[in-house]
């Protein structure tokens, strides 16, 4: 080749390359201008003089796998070209960011370790978009988060500030049951039996809880409460006691973390006092769970305990799932702010309309 030809070809061949080594040991060559777009690589080159040859390859942080590196280099390759318009860059970013969540998280991690802030911002925004508006269960599923908070921790009022009426209701339930348990333990020596002893089996109880409660008056005022209660089948009432008692045991079993809740102070054994509370949502939860003089056998066999565990979870989930609809109904019904009460059993009377629509989880 003549000298002129060499002079023409040489500039392209003179593009300098940088050697990069990923955590798994593989080394690759990358155009310098592309790699320099990453501040961390830039720093390594400038300050430490690395990267100029295979032996002195820049070792990338552990979080940068070869797949992520190639993605990042694609990003750098596009953006380091100065002449692109903002619109072009935005367009590229939107397409670039379309990948599954797992890769998105890995990419964020890798970009952060390379200090590539624009890419970190882009991926953070994408992750935020994924998270926004989803329920905790959905988020846990997407990111494979362990569901390792206890039910109680989730409901601790101080810690959960989403101000969800359901949460306050469940808090009240737990608080009430704990209190009753304490009282029961104090009164262990005293025997006062009110109604009949419930001889039904666990299965009967559960089926009762889950579907047979045909007491279907939805909205009740506090004045009618006592009447309604008396109207009930005493046997049913006793069975409710049994379940409530088991719930109490259960909550005890979960291990009260010794937190003080506002609910403790507010929850009283009598219905009328509850009805004094201002919030509609607070009053929604029927205080049928408090039973004055029923003394129930403290021993619960483990099988029942398991069932009860499931029941509580189930109850919580059910409340969560159709709560918005319930609230709508309530609020449209209760314009005069009269306290409304529902049966305490999981399958609340309001839900009778929706039972067929409800999907049991």
């Amino acid at each position: 080749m003549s000298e002129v030809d060499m002079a023409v070809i040489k500039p392209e061949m003179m593009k300098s390359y940088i050697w990069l080594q990923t955590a798994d040991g593989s080394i690759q060559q990358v155009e310098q201008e592309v790699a320099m777009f990453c501040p961390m690589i830039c720093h390594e080159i400038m300050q430490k003089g690395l990267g100029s040859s295979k032996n002195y390859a820049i070792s990338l942080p552990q979080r940068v796998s070869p797949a992520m590196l190639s993605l990042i280099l694609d990003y750098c390759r596009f953006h380091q070209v100065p002449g692109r318009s903002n619109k072009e860059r935005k367009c590229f970013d939107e397409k670039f960011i379309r990948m599954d969540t797992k890769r998105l998280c890995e990419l964020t991690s890798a970009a952060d370790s390379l200090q590539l802030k624009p890419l970190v911002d882009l991926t953070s925004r994408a992750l935020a978009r994924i998270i926004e508006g989803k329920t905790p269960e959905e988020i846990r599923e997407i990111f494979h988060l362990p569901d390792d908070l206890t039910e109680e921790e989730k409901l601790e009022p101080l810690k959960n500030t989403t101000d969800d009426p359901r949460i306050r209701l469940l808090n009240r339930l737990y608080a009430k049951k704990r209190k009753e348990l304490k009282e029961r333990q104090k009164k262990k020596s005293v025997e006062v039996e009110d109604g009949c002893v419930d001889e039904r089996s666990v299965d009967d109880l559960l089926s009762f809880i889950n579907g047979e409660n045909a007491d279907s008056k939805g909205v009740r005022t506090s004045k009618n409460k006592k009447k309604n209660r008396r109207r009930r089948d005493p046997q049913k009432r006793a069975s409710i006691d049994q379940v409530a008692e088991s719930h109490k045991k259960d909550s005890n079993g979960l291990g009260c973390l010794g937190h003080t809740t506002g609910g403790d102070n507010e929850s009283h054994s009598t219905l009328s006092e509850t009805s004094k509370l201002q919030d509609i949502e607070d009053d929604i939860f029927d205080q049928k769970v408090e039973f004055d003089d029923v003394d129930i056998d403290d021993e619960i066999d483990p099988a029942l305990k398991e069932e009860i565990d499931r029941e509580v979870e189930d109850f919580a989930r059910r409340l969560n799932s159709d709560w918005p609809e319930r609230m709508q109904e309530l609020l449209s019904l209760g314009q005069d702010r009269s306290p409304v009460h529902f049966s305490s059993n999981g399958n609340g009377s309001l839900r009778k309309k929706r039972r067929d629509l409800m999907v049991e989880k």
Partner: protein
Amino acid sequence: MEDTEVRDLISDLPQSIMESILSRLPIRDAVSSSILSTKWRYRWTTLTHLVFDDNCVKGCNDRALLEGNLISFITRTLFLHQGPIHKFQLSTSYLQCCPEIDQWLLFLSRSGIKELVLELGDGEWFRIPSCLFNCKKLTRLELCRCEFEPPPSFKGFLYLKSLNLYQVLVGPEAIESLISSCPVLENLSLSYFDSLALTVRAPNLKYLCLEGEFTDICLENTPQLLAMSVAMYMTEDTAEHFEQSSSCNFMKFLGGVPLLERLIGHIYFTKYLSVGNRPGKLQITYSHLRVIELYQVSFEDMKEILVVLRLITNAPSLTELKISGSSHTSAATEAPDLAFWAKECPKDCTFKQLKCVTMTDMSGVPHEMEFIKFLLANSPVLEEMSISPCVYVMDCRMNMLIELLKFRRASGQAEILFVQE
């Protein structure tokens, strides 16, 4: 479903990224993240930017309930929060004047707040407590529908760069002293004040936006001003007051702004500037002024036309000009002094950089047409002139077009667009 083999994807990202993600979520979602898993329990509590609005509470019909819910949500969030809070924004129509806001401001003043935005609902205006003036690190303050009175011992916000007061009740001396006691103030916006006479002394001020009933404005010390937007609502009284004023408003306003790049004047601005104008050439040149927008210029008032001419002839870098007219053909009973254009109009001015002119609400009155003619004849690099007739004028449009066709154009590339909606 419980696949313990699959690693948790996201919780191990560094705290800074987690905060970055959480800070991009609405505050409600961010706080809800505390029940995702143990690692997420307190992740959100160190966020430094807290933005609250009406979406934080679920809508329902009961107004009092919404208020209560919003208040308790904000209170609980602040109570659980750890660490400094740099930005707090509350934009709500549900809250106006409630005692909890005082407590929040007290809490924020102890948390090193730097940016505070408080937009409250209509009704009784909230009275800002004195703890606000203890927020020494404040760099940005925005208040909407509040009452504001700095205590006498207040020495100013030393780091305040941006001040935005919208519908705020505050005494005029208080405003002036507040502005002058913030040495690094760059951005000032005052809206909806009643009958305010204002003297602005802000040596670092770059952006100024004024809107409201101002009886008097004087930019006494604003040498760094880059852009200004003024909308003056005049009542009968203020208009009369202007007529009698002897001071030259033009100088008071534009006398000390040599670095000005953008000038936007809304209704009555040219009228205001025309008061006290002395004839003769202006000694100041606005060499950086590139964009001029003047709205509601009455082309029947010779004085206003003179103001416009004065502005554009002393702005050699002018690139973009937008003017909207507010003339009424019916009011032009007297024959306009068209001789002015032939004789007294400055002849030697060329708009060397003027590329784009937009004239809107044109009624076709003679002075408007002469002005357009003047522009076309003196703009050698003009690329586009767009003219929109006023919606009320239907019959003159043809005449306007015919006249437009006759005008000489100094620029060969000039496109004239006659915009009919």
